[in-house]
């Protein structure tokens, strides 16, 4: 009568699995695909790294824009013409600049971008080291002895010891709340 949780969950799990296993949306049309699977797989890899200039946060491999299709075809033509991967990318960047590369090259303009993670980690470690070192190593400056005035105040405030001024302000220690 009562279906088990697993049975009820099964369709949901199957649907989720199907959605996860679904190949992410690619825009490559059947007529674009090269006969040579090795070349086609290189074309796919290259296309995935080239920005579609119409919908700028998609690669040309994902974009349905007509310019993206043109560029996919150009990538395949260049591969058929015998270009190596670098030459194909150069062909596109000659026309559209480094901006078409979804992974920008390291050069004088981008070293800070690429170096930022390492620089920030180094800086963080430096700050941590400087802050934590004294406490960890126990090299905190030794407490200064109390001056005569401080000694007098302490005696006034602390009950029991010395007892010279027992009449002054209420006790700090020994209140009701502090005594379980």
């Amino acid at each position, binding site marked *: 009568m009562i279906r088990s949780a697993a049975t009820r969950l099964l369709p949901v799990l199957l649907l989720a699995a199907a959605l996860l296993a679904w190949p992410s949306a690619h825009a490559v049309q059947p007529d674009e695909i090269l006969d040579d699977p090795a070349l086609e797989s290189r074309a796919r890899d290259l296309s995935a790294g080239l920005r579609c*200039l*119409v919908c*700028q946060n998609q690669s040309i491999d994902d974009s349905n824009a*007509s*310019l993206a299709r*043109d*560029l996919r075809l*150009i990538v395949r033509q260049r591969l058929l013409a015998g270009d190596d991967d670098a030459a194909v990318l150069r062909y596109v*960047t*000659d*026309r*559209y*600049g480094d*901006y078409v590369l979804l992974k920008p090259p390291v050069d004088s303009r981008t070293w800070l971008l690429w170096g930022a993670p390492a620089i920030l980690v180094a*800086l963080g470690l430096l*700050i941590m080291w*400087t*802050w934590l070192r004294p406490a960890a190593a126990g090299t905190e400056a030794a407490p200064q002895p109390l001056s005569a005035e401080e000694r007098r105040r302490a005696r006034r405030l602390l009950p029991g010891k010395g007892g010279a001024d027992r009449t002054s302000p209420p006790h700090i220690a020994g209140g009701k709340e502090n005594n379980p």
Partner: protein
Amino acid sequence: MKRGILGIIPLLLFMAVAGYFALGLTRYDPDQLDAARLNQPVPDFTTPALKADRPGLASADLKGEPQLLNVFASWCVPCRAEHPLITRLAESGITVNGLNWKDDPVAARAWLAELGDPYTRIGADASGRAGIELGVYGVPETYVIDAGGVIRFRHAGPLQERHLRDEILPLLARLRAETASRP
């Protein structure tokens, strides 16, 4: 004391990063990408004539005098918006060439018949390959090419009065002076 100085490092870092972002958000215009062909000779291309009574366009034609190249298409609404300005430029005596990009020639001819045809030459680039040689990524785009056939300016998007006043007309005047002073 040492801690006091170190303590403001996170604040300084934050300010640096925030400043960087602010610059990136305000100065960078995603509709106005860098033109890779800027200050380079017009790349090789040849396109057939769009209209029977008007020559087609090849890179060799874009030489000899400072001139404009306007990339347009009949399916492009901003092209329609900038068309009166292009017409005015042509009427003022500036050579304006047209590249009809990724368009149906019949539709393009009808478009020109309706709005008027200001172009000296019009290349029909139905496949879009000539545009890709130039680095066109949308229409309209307008290029200023000097007498030596070098691309000196590219504007992506519809031209407006201020682009003419602040950029294109002063540049053309400068290029004409350059050409005139050359032996």
